[in-house]
C-alpha cells in the first residue's frame, strides 16, 4: 500500500469526536480491502473483521485505534464573526492565524483572526488568548452567516498533509489516524499470511472526549485479547527527553498496570525476533488511551498498548515517522500470527 497516500487521505478527512462520518467512509473503504467483512458498531466505530483459520468457535483479538479528532465548535455569532469553544483537547495557543473549515449548512473556509502587532499594547502580546476571546472569520456578511451557521456547528482545522525530510510526515489528526493506518498495514500483512484467531480491527469513535467507542466496542465484541494503538510524545524541541521517546526508533510498548504482563512480554519477544527496533514506555497509571476502558470491559480483557512516537501533539502540525507506522502494523501482524490457545492459558494468574 502507499502509506503516505493513505495517511494523507486519513489526515485531511474531517471527523471531530461524535461527528466522524466523513473519516468513517474512508476507513470503511480502506479496511474493506483486506478484511472479510466490515461492520459499523451501534455508536459508529468501524470494525474490519478477518476470520482466522482455526476451527470455530475461534478466539478473537481486537485492535483499537481512534479515528476521531479534536476540533472547535460555534458558540455564538457576533457581527458576522463566530465565537468558538473547543471540542476535546484543542490547544488555544496554536489557533491565531490558523485556517479552518466551518461545517454549517455547507462547508465554509474561515480563519481564526488575529489583530496585527501594530495595534496591540506590548503586555497584550504576553498573553495567550483563551478560546472565548478568539473569533472565526468566514468573510461573509452577517445575514448570510446567520443563514448558514448556527450555534453548535463544528469547525475543523484545515491543513493539507505533507512529507518532511527524514521520512517524517506532517498533518492534523495524526493523533490517532497514524494508528488507524497502522491497523490497515496490519490487516494487509495478515491477508498475506496465516492466523488462527479472528482479528477485529477497530477504528473507534470519541476517544478524545469519553473513550465511548472503545468501551462500547469492547463490550460488544468481547475479544479474548486487545491491543490499543495510540500516539505518544516523540522527542522534540521544548520537552525534556525524560518525557519523550525517540522518533524513528520504533513503536513504544507500554508497561504498567493498564497492560497485561504476558502481552507485553509477547510483543517484546516478537519485536526482538523480527529484529525490529522498539522502545519501552513505563506508564504508572491511567494510559489516557483506548487501552484504559478496554481493560475493564465486561469481566476484564487482557490489553496492551503500542504507541507511535509523535511530535507536537494536538496541534495542526503533528509529525510522525512513516517507518514507525509500518513497524507498528507489522509488529501487530507478527504477534497475531503466533496467537494460539496455549497463549490464553498464560493470561490467568497462578496461585499454586
Amino acid at each position, binding site marked *: 500500500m502507499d502509506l503516505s497516500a493513505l495517511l494523507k487521505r486519513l489526515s485531511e478527512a474531517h471527523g471531530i469526536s461524535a461527528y466522524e462520518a466523513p473519516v468513517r467512509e474512508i476507513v470503511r473503504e480502506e479496511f474493506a480491502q483486506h478484511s472479510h467483512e466490515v461492520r459499523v458498531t451501534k455508536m459508529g466505530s468501524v470494525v474490519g473483521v478477518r476470520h482466522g483459520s482455526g476451527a470455530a468457535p475461534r478466539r478473537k483479538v481486537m485492535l483499537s485505534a481512534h479515528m476521531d479528532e479534536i476540533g472547535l465548535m460555534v458558540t455564538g455569532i457576533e457581527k458576522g464573526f463566530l465565537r468558538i469553544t473547543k471540542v476535546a483537547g484543542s490547544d488555544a495557543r496554536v489557533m491565531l492565524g490558523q485556517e479552518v473549515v466551518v461545517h454549517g449548512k455547507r462547508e465554509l473556509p474561515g480563519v481564526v483572526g488575529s489583530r496585527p502587532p501594530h495595534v496591540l499594547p506590548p503586555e497584550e502580546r504576553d498573553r495567550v488568548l483563551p478560546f472565548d476571546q478568539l473569533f472565526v472569520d468566514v468573510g461573509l456578511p452577517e445575514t448570510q452567516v446567520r443563514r448558514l451557521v448556527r450555534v453548535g456547528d463544528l469547525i475543523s482545522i484545515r491543513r493539507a498533509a505533507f512529507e518532511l525530510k527524514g521520512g517524517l510526515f506532517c498533518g492534523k489528526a495524526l493523533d490517532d489516524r497514524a494508528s488507524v493506518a497502522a491497523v490497515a498495514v496490519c490487516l494487509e500483512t495478515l491477508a498475506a499470511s496465516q492466523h488462527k484467531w479472528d482479528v477485529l480491527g477497530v477504528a473507534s469513535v470519541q476517544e478524545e472526549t469519553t473513550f465511548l467507542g472503545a468501551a462500547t466496542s469492547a463490550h460488544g465484541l468481547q475479544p479474548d485479547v486487545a491491543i490499543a494503538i495510540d500516539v505518544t510524545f516523540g522527542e522534540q524541541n521544548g520537552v525534556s527527553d*525524560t518525557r519523550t521517546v525517540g522518533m524513528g526508533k520504533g513503536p513504544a510498548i507500554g*508497561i*504498567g*498496570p*493498564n497492560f*497485561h504482563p504476558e502481552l507485553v512480554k509477547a510483543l517484546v519477544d516478537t519485536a526482538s525476533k523480527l529484529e525490529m527496533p522498539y522502545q*519501552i*514506555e*513505563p506508564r*504508572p*497509571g*491511567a494510559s489516557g488511551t483506548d487501552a484504559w476502558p478496554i*481493560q*475493564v470491559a*465486561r*469481566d*476484564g*480483557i*487482557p490489553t496492551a498498548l503500542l504507541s507511535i512516537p509523535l511530535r507536537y501533539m494536538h496541534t495542526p502540525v503533528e509529525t510522525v515517522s512513516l517507518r514507525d507506522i509500518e513497524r507498528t502494523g507489522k509488529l501487530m501482524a507478527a504477534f497475531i500470527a503466533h496467537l494460539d490457545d496455549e497463549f490464553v492459558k498464560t*493470561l*490467568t*494468574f*497462578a*496461585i*499454586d
Partner: protein
Amino acid sequence: MILQQLSEALGVSGNEDAVRKIIADAVRDHVDELRTDTIGNLFAVKKAQAAQGAKRAFKVMLAAHMDEVGLMITGHDGNGGLRFQPVGTIDDRVLLGKVLLVGPDKIPGVIGVKPVHLLKGDEGKQVVKIDDMRIDIGASSKEEAEGLVKLGQVAAFSTRYNKVGRTATGKAFDDRAGCAVLVELLRGARFPFDLHAVFTVQEEVGLRGAHVATSAVEPDCAFVLEGTICDDLPKDKDISPTTELGKGPAISLMDRSAFADRRLVDHLIATAEKLGIPYQFKQPGIGGTDAGTITRSKAGVPTAPVSVPCRYIHSPVSRLSLDDFENTVRLMRESLKRLTPDVLKRS
C-alpha cells in the same frame, strides 16, 4: 500472623503476585472455590452453611484490595541513578531519606537528597519534586543500572512490621489490614449465604480490579474492607480527625467515590449496638474506595465500606490499633451472620 505477613509482602499496583500467593495459601483450606482472573483478582467463595431455599442464591461480596502505592522506574541516569514516578497517590515529601526494595529481586535502593550543609538561602524551605529525586541502588553507570533494574519495574517501601503494645506499625495497612480482616472471616464459620470474597488488584490506580470483579460476581450487595485515614495528630482547629485510633471500625456514609447504602449501614449499626462493639463514622466526603465502582456495576449494587483506622497511610509507615482490627473482624462477622435479603427490603 497474617497481618504481618501481608504488610511485609511487596505488591505495588499491577504487581500483586506475592500478596495473592500468601492469601491463596491462607484461605485455600477454608473455601469451596478459589480462582483468579486475567487482571489478577483473587476470588474465594465460601458457600452457605445450608443450601439456600430461594431459586437464586443470595450473594454477598466482600472486597479488599491487595495493591499498595509505590514507585515505578521510568529511566536510568548516566551516573546510575533511577528516575521514577508514583504508582497511586503519594505526597512527594514522604520520600526523601527512605529505603525502597526495587524490582522482583528486591534490590535495596535509597532516595537521598542534597545535604543540609550545602543548602543556600531558602533552599531548605522548598519541597523537592519527585522529578528531581533518584533511587540509588549503588550502580555507577547507566549500563550497570539497566542490567539490574528494567524500565517499568516497581519499588515498594522496605518497612518491617512491628508490634507496639496494642498497636502495630508497618507499611501498606491500606489495604493489607482489609485483606487480613477478610482472611480472618474466611477462616471462620460459614454464613447463611454464599460469601464471595474478592481480593482486588489496582485499587490505587483507579478501582480497576473491583470493576471487573463485580461484573463477574453480580452480587446482591457488597461490603468493602479498607484501611482508612486516621488523621488524629494535634491541630490548631477543632475539626474532624477523619477517624480516631482505638474507637473501633469506621463505617463510611459518603466519600468522594460513593454513597454507602443506608440499609446496610443501619444493619451494621444495629449489630454493633446490640453486641456492644465499638464503632465510629468515617468523616464523610474524604477519599474513595472500591465501593465507587462496585456500587455502579451493571444495574447497581448496594454497598457499604467498613475500615480499620490507620494513621499515615500512603507513606512508608502506618500505625493501627490491634483492638480496632479485632473489632472490625467481629463487627463484620456478627453483621454477616445476621444478614438476610430482608435487610435490603425498602419500606
